[in-house]
């Protein structure tokens, strides 16, 4: 008895799907707070720190909180790529390793992306409804970022 062409293709897809489950990307969970962490560099109020952790840290720190589907490939790979790109752009865990020039520019970028609503990404908000920034939080972040930036440029 020979299988139909469609059945063969479906079987092949199934095998591929099973095989790729064994290829798990490395997790971004250091569990440590580095010396260069932004909380060790600046006075970050508790309320703002909480917002950062909740809305930004999954992609912009060394500690991602993984959802269940991160165990399912290729979703896990997609997440890993997002996290890598996010960390390349801005990593709160290693903020202190940037030159003061870059720190000031990063702070400005934070202000603008929060103000324009380009961050958190809409695709992220779709799956993390609690990460949506309220106007109050937005204002709080923007004012903190500005104060911090001013102190940075004055110390220069």
């Amino acid at each position, binding site marked *: 008895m020979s299988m139909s062409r469609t059945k063969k293709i479906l079987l092949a897809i199934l095998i591929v799907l099973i095989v790729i489950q064994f290829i798990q990307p490395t997790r971004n969970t250091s569990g440590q707070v580095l010396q260069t962490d932004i909380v060790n560099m600046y006075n970050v109020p508790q309320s703002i720190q909480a917002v950062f952790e909740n809305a930004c840290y999954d992609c912009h720190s060394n500690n991602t909180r993984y959802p269940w589907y991160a165990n399912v490939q290729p979703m896990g790979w997609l997440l890993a790529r997002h996290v890598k790109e996010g960390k390349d752009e801005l990593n709160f865990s290693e903020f202190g390793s940037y030159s003061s*020039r870059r720190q000031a520019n990063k702070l400005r970028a934070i202000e603008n992306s929060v103000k324009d609503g380009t961050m958190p990404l809409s695709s992220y908000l779709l799956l993390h409804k609690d990460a949506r920034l309220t106007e109050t939080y937005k204002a709080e972040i923007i004012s903190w970022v500005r104060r911090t930036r001013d102190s940075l440029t004055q110390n220069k």
Partner: protein
Amino acid sequence: MTASIAFTACNSGNNKSAENNSADNNQTPTTTLSSNPTGEATPIKGIVNGYLNLKNALANDNSQAAANAANEFLEAMNKIDKSSLTEGQKKVYADVADDAKEMAEHISKSADKIDHQREHFDMLSNDIYDMVKAFGTGQTLYRDFCPMYNDNKGATWLSEVKLIRNPYLGKEMPTCGEVKEEIKQ
């Protein structure tokens, strides 16, 4: 005080913009700057040229040309011969390079988002200014200031011509701004 002066400067520039237009066209470099012009060579010649092409592209509201110029700028950044630099220059370069490259990468990747390009151009302009001060340019440059950009926080840029052509506001307000400093070669 500063704001009111700046505002007047912009207003007068704007009123005159119509009659200035023909003069603008004569003095404005519309062609791409040569990557190897005659004149004193400095290690950052190519970098400055890339920057100036980027500036002109933004002044023309040409986002794609800006992205191309940012790539040209990046190439020049990567080509710089660090062994030829003095200790002081190395220090400035180390401080500026990562930031400047990052800005240029953003600009090159944002060919359809000119506002985003301009935001990074603002930060890049500060980097280039510091480099020009440390390295020299081989040509006279002008540091211009636009008081209106970024919610009236203002922004600077470098230009190879004395005439104001605003890369932040583009054709909307081409003559807004003033020369703050002349940097002799």
